[in-house]
């Protein structure tokens, strides 16, 4: 996108990976690119652990009887699946891995604004992960990832406190990352990198950071109060004293609904990058896509009570929240239309990242539309706490967010590692994930509509066929997720060298070598054009 006013570096051998191999150089690194990789290690680990819990859940649900695990164990399985996947995979995956790696490169900076704080965020994350993992090892936790009182404060005899503290700690990692990114975007942009020349990924990360900074402290204090109530007997949510358990739900969802946007906005940013690159076109309606990110972040704060429609809130407030939940669909739809319009009459290049984008569009569409069902008051009463809800949020959080993460990962992998992966296997995995995902979760919409409640290990026999389909889909999905691990690992050792810009993409990160220099750029670039000037360059295929 930019014309670099400097000669290319004369030191192609030195990069951020090989300039120092010692363990200390990794554990004490202040380099945003290395910190991204440190996050990737733990997020992948958490994804595997969460995946194992999911597998156990799906195996239990192949038969109507609760025969494999007891009801208590089942409660622990879905709780620990949720805790791992929400707080240690979905929240950090795109901002802390891809965002950390790309943000300074994209805006032409040497690093984020506060590199030490960035490293601290990672340590805080690992300490939080350590606490929740310890809680799992010493017996697990069974309240559901939502920690509703009084399950969590009085009824549960599992390791709620340890898990809560782990989430409290990990929350600060998210807050500090958001803070760091906001300051970075405000203060670290290269000369000429105006706000409207920023790649849309940066806009998405900015909107995400806004949510991280404003919402996460609220869950921190809420979980802390729940833990204090459990351990010391404070009574803020205790109905026996006149406390209000629904207040906990309000405070919890004040974070946890916007948290969905922490999960989905950054992948949306990655989608914008990939779709422009592989359609060889200027993104359609740049400013609409940019502002829709901010609109989603802002509206996202005003819809939380749609999780409380059956919790006894006033019908008038429920009507307002229902209306606002419909409203938040508008900016999401704006994005989807703009992406589709970007592909229209584009010279589409069918490579792995683009396959993931198509998967994302399909799954996000279904997830988004079923969200409208849930936002309408009457229908929500019918499907509340059923598999319909489970299917809906998996379409958004796994179908949308993880698919977007994979699109971004396949797009930037050559930049991160300097190596190409096997494109055919990449396409195969995208296909397996798309098919497996739909097979797993589409039957759950039907199950939910027919009335199968979530969070039970046994169910009436008439639901078996759909549950078996779902479990079969989950095995396909598992293969689809494990495949990239194999070909990515292989590519590290045997992959073809990528070169600076294998996709012929615009964007400052593609103007520096792969893997980039420790200091990113030999000279700070000067930017003099917009982010997606694909019309100005001829198609260059690696």
């Amino acid at each position, binding site marked *: 996108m930019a014309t670099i006013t400097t000669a290319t570096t004369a030191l192609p051998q030195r990069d951020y990976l090989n300039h120092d191999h010692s363990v200390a150089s990794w554990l004490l690194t202040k380099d945003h690119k290395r910190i991204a990789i440190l996050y990737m290690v733990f997020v992948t680990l958490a994804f595997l652990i969460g995946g194992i819990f999911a597998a156990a859940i799906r195996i239990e649900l192949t038969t109507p009887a609760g025969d494999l695990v007891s009801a208590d164990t089942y409660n622990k399985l879905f709780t620990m699946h949720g805790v791992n996947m929400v707080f240690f995979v979905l929240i950090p995956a795109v901002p802390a891995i891809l965002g950390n790696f790309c943000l300074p490169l994209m805006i032409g900076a040497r690093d984020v604004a506060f590199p030490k704080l960035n490293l601290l965020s990672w340590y805080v994350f690992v300490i939080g992960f350590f606490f929740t993992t310890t809680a799992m090892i010493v017996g697990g936790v069974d309240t559901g990832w939502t920690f509703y009182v009084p399950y969590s404060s009085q009824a549960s005899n599992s390791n709620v406190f340890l898990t809560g503290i782990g989430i409290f700690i990990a929350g600060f990692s998210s807050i500090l990352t958001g803070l760091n990114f906001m*300051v970075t975007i405000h203060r*670290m942009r290269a000369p000429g990198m105006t706000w409207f020349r920023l790649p849309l990924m940066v806009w998405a990360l900015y909107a995400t950071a806004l949510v991280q900074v404003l919402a996460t402290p609220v869950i921190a204090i809420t979980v802390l109060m729940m833990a204090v109530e459990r351990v010391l*007997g404070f009574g*803020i949510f205790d109905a026996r004293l006149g*406390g209000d358990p629904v207040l906990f739900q309000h405070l919890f969802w004040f974070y946890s609904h916007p948290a969905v946007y922490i999960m989905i906005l950054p992948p949306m940013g990655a989608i914008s990058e990939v779709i422009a690159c592989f359609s060889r076109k200027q993104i359609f309606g740049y400013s609409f896509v940019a502002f829709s990110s901010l609109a989603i972040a802002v509206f996202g704060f005003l819809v939380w009570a749609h999780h409380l429609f059956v919790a006894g809130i006033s019908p008038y407030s429920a009507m307002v929240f229902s209306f606002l939940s419909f409203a938040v669909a508008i900016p999401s739809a704006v994005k989807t239309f703009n992406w589709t319009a970007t592909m229209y009459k584009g010279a589409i290049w069918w490579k792995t990242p683009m396959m993931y984008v198509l998967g994302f569009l399909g799954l996000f569409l279904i997830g988004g539309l079923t969200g409208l069902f849930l936002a309408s008051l009457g229908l929500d009463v019918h499907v509340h706490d059923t598999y319909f809800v489970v299917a809906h949020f998996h379409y958004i959080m796994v179908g949308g967010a993880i698919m977007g993460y994979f699109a971004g990962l396949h797009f930037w992998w050559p930049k991160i590692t300097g190596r190409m992966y096997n494109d055919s296997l990449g396409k195969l995995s995208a296909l397996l994930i798309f098919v497996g995902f739909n097979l797993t979760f589409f039957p759950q919409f039907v199950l939910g509509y027919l009335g199968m409640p979530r969070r039970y290990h046994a169910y009436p026999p008439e639901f078996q066929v759909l549950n078996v389909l779902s479990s079969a889909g989950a095995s396909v999905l598992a293969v689809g997720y494990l495949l990239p691990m194999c070909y990515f690992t292989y590519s590290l050792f045997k992959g073809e060298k990528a070169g600076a810009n294998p996709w012929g993409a615009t964007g400052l990160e593609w103007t520096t070598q792969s893997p980039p220099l420790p200091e990113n750029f030999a000279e700070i670039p000067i930017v003099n054009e917009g982010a997606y000037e694909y019309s100005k360059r001829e198609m260059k295929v690696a």
Partner: protein
Amino acid sequence: MPNGVAAHADEHGHVHVHHPAHQHHFQTMQQQQEASALGMWLFLVTEIMFFGGLLVAYMLYRVWYPEAWSEGSEELSIVLGGTNTLVLIGSSLTMAFAVRAGQTGRAPKVIVGWLGITMALGLTFLVIKFFEYKEKFALGHVPGRNFHAEGPHAAQLQIFYSLYFALTGLHALHMIIGFGLLSVIAWMAWKGRFSEEWYTPLEMSGLYWHFVDIVWIFLFPLLYLVDRAHQLS
């Protein structure tokens, strides 16, 4: 070479002349300072949201249980709370003097002096708070299994005291962190690290200290001054 300016060659062999506190990923010292200031303000915003969660609970229960609120509030000592309010306002003033001394390039002992008074006032606050807590323990007003209160509002009174301890406890924790922070800053000032060109850590700790004071300015009326008007007549 002017005071506090150092030159060295980086790994490309470029020779830089810059302030020793200047970090390499910033292009200019001004950019670095603006980034620090924005970061600090954002951090304070997260703090507002952090306390905000508790204040929402406070609002709800105050509307629901006005009698318990006025009863609980009357048990708190306006004298001790008021003294602490004055102590903290004073400490904000001396903190501002410390930052001003750094900004105008005064001698280290001036900065350290003002910081010392600020820390002494902070400590005074914590000591008074300690005696207040001690009294609550003696009266059985600490929420939990050993909570003890009489009267028709005893249960809701426990919610009041839960919020009292959560809010003032978190505030006191912030004071302790601030005390530690100022110790480090005082040590840096003593070593002569600050000058007119660069006193960012001093200024940032000042922002933090003022923020913690302002939190107390809200907590004092919210907790100590509920329904006290009748006592004036």
